[in-house]
């Protein structure tokens, strides 16, 4: 008798579950397909777009092929972070602190702070540049965007922030649309994409290094791992996290592909000389139509704003986790002073720097990538030690093939970063 009662009661509650079902599935989708894709999209920031446009407009399609090995390296590195996040449930900075102690962590965090500050400055430079195309002065656009970004996190709740970011990801389509508007010769592009070309020319090599440096940045590893942890992914969900990373890494490079290609078939072929992403956007107007310019500028604005919100946030999270300070978007300012303090400071300094008259924007963007490149090898070495530690990873350490690939990737990155620093200091 009780059995039948249970059935009758179950009926309406089943309806309740199915009403929730759609949102649940959507929720699971975002839970599993979130961190990797967001990280990757933030990766195509102002610095990235500038580098890709310069690569396309100065060297045509010859550098397009580098995106294939870069995608692979990106997948290898990010997969380790996602795996560490899922297995340990801890952020990368927390793991580094627990494994390598206070001293190493302290200096690493200082370096990361300044590196990410450099990146934040270049994001606000991107905001300024893109809005100047629409005729807005940087003295208006930069303070407004800084306040927008700041209030998004300090005043808003985490939910709306995340939704805003997810919607923002869709705007990257504008680059792909721009690419199609330009009506390129697809046969030639495919050939160039699949044939590695290498010139032993200093400018060419520096540009190749810059593409690597802007695509694989130190902050990404911390951000990705924290997001994976935040989502609370379980070991059983790990394969989804891996898929998420792979999809994300491919998306970054698809967007990069279209920017390089767009600039190559228009600006490079027309022989126009450009120096910034803004130049690139403006140069597109006579060659590919004014809609291309607008889409390009809009894409740059969105990329810069998106990255400008995430970089300071990620930096504060990372540092607070390392030092055990309260860090949560659910806390109020007074409850997590270090967290919000760091966040506000980075936005203040990042935006403030751009407001100086005659500030050398190109140099800032370039040097912020040089610092990125310098810090990256250290972080990768820490990561490799952690991911191979059985006490931390249990049965989820790297296999020998994975280790071989990661060591090769890291050695290559160290050589590239080293040569970039060498060339930039010469």
């Amino acid at each position, binding site marked *: 008798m009780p059995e039948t009662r249970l059935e009758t*009661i179950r009926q309406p509650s089943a309806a309740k579950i199915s009403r929730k079902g759609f949102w649940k599935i959507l929720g699971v989708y975002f839970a599993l397909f979130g961190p990797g894709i967001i990280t990757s999209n933030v990766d195509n920031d102002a610095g990235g777009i500038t580098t890709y446009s310069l690569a396309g407009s100065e060297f045509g399609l010859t550098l397009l092929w580098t995106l294939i090995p870069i995608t692979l390296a990106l997948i290898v590195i990010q997969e380790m972070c996602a795996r560490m996040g899922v297995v*340990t449930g801890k952020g990368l900075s927390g793991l580094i*602190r*627990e494994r390598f102690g206070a001293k190493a962590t302290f200096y690493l965090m200082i370096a990361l702070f300044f590196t990410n500050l450099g990146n934040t400055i270049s994001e606000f430079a991107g905001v300024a540049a893109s809005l100047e195309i629409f005729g807005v002065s940087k003295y208006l656009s930069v303070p407004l965007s800084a306040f927008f970004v700041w209030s998004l996190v300090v005043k808003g709740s985490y939910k709306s922030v995340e939704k805003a970011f997810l919607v923002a990801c869709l705007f990257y389509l504008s680059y792909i649309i721009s690419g199609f508007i330009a009506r390129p010769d697809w046969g030639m592009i495919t050939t160039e994409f699949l044939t590695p070309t290498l010139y032993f020319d200093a400018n060419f090599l520096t540009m190749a290094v810059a593409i690597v440096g802007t695509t694989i940045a130190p902050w990404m590893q911390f951000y990705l791992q924290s997001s994976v942890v935040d989502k*609370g992914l*379980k070991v059983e969900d790990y394969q989804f996290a891996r898929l998420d990373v792979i999809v994300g890494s491919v998306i970054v490079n698809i967007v990069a592909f279209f920017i390089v290609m767009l600039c190559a078939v228009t600006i490079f072929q027309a022989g126009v000389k450009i120096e910034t992403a803004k130049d690139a956007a403006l140069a597109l107007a006579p060659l590919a139509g004014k809609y291309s310019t607008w889409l390009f500028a809009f894409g740059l604005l969105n990329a810069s704003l998106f990255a400008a919100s995430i970089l300071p946030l990620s930096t504060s999270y990372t540092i607070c986790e390392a030092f*055990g300070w309260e860090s949560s978007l659910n806390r109020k300012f007074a409850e997590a002073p270090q967290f919000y303090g760091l966040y506000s400071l980075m936005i203040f300094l990042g935006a403030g720097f751009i407001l100086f008259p005659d500030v050398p924007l190109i140099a800032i963007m370039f040097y912020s990538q040089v610092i990125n490149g310098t810090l990256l090898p250290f972080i990768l070495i820490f990561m490799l030690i952690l991911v191979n530690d059985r006490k931390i990873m249990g049965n989820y350490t790297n296999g020998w093939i994975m280790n071989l690939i990661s060591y090769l990737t890291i050695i290559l990155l160290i050589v590239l970063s080293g040569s970039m620093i060498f060339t930039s200091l010469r």
Partner: protein
Amino acid sequence: MDPLATIKEKGLCKLGRECYKIISLEVVRMAVNATPQVFLFLSQILGKKMVDPEGRRIGRVSDLIVNIADLYPLVRSVLFLPVGGEKPSRLPWEKISEAGDQLVVPSLSRERQTEAAIGEGELLLKDSLLDKQIVDTHGAKVLRVNDLHLLKVNHSLRLVHVDVGLRGLMRRVGLEKAMDKFFKWFFDYHLADYLIPWRYVQPLSSPALLRLKISQTRLGQLHPAELADIIEELDIHKRSEVFQSLDVETAAEALEETDPKIQVRLIENLNPAQASDIIEEMSPSEAADLLGDLPKDKAEGILKEMEKEMAEDVKELLVHPEEKAGGLMTSSFPSLPPQAMVKEALDLLRQQAENLDLIYYLYVTDEEGHLFGVASLRGLLMANPQTPLSALMDSRVVTVSLEEEKEEIADLFAKYGFKAIPVVDETNRIKGVIPFKSLLEVVAPQLGK
């Protein structure tokens, strides 16, 4: 010198006055009759050179082993890395003497040094505490350990405080003096150490530490809402470890205060029997919300394990959507027939108070549950015990239907200032009561988070 004064002068404790007194007295009690007493930090001991009586180097200190069962754990042994050796060995602390910056080991013990095995009830200070997360049960915070503060009385060494401050961090980095000078010069301020007495510290680094008897009482000192905040702040593995270390009652209270998503995760990791034990301790409405969020088969498994009466209540609540009156209400409220006396009502409340979700109102109903009126606790206390409820009750009861939306209910609460509103069906039979707290959680979920 008076130890109390020393502590006060050095600003050793940043906590409130009350707590400061307790700690100081404890430290004094420990230090009483003892002449040479020195505070020192773990970071100052780690890496110290160990030599034999002839001054030959033996190795370096790599860790300290304490007895975890002590109120202030006593250092039993030193773990050291022998010269040229890879594996650490251990030596009893009392065999070691100090000479300047070095630790002197009697030469005989060189052969007798034992393997570095950790015994029952022992804790490695560096390995399980330094740089790891702990819960400060007094301040209700999750913090990271920067250093450990030890007190040496005669030759015995005890762990007394955990250093979680900036100064401790800078000491580890090796910039403590530089930072002190900077603060003095720039702010004219002396930064004090931020120390937490060991008795307010709950280590988290291993499940074994959480399962210790002594620990349970420590996390039990926290208010359930604080405990819930702490659980939310921990990583996914530690959450389960901490949650599973709690006794059933504390776990249920903490669970009620936890974010619904995390609730589901915590319960999913338990088997149905454990889960049902905890859920039975929750209020029916909270339990129904939680079970409604669980996967169907898991929820049914738990319902089967639960006490019949509670399971029935919960199933009834499960039928209603969470955002409407039926989903907000609880079925655990007091009711009596109109002919019952005030005395009976007070007796009922006294007996049932512990298990009722709501005691401020007593609902007057017939046997089928038709609602006639309501008597407030205040009214009952003031009335003559021999008055029948029918004479005392207020028959103008504000009720809502099962399908009422949360906004409408919120309006009623705001208008009348009730602590609870009864929910009735079409024939005016009482189905449950919505306590203000349940409504607040739905209408303003961001408050208090």
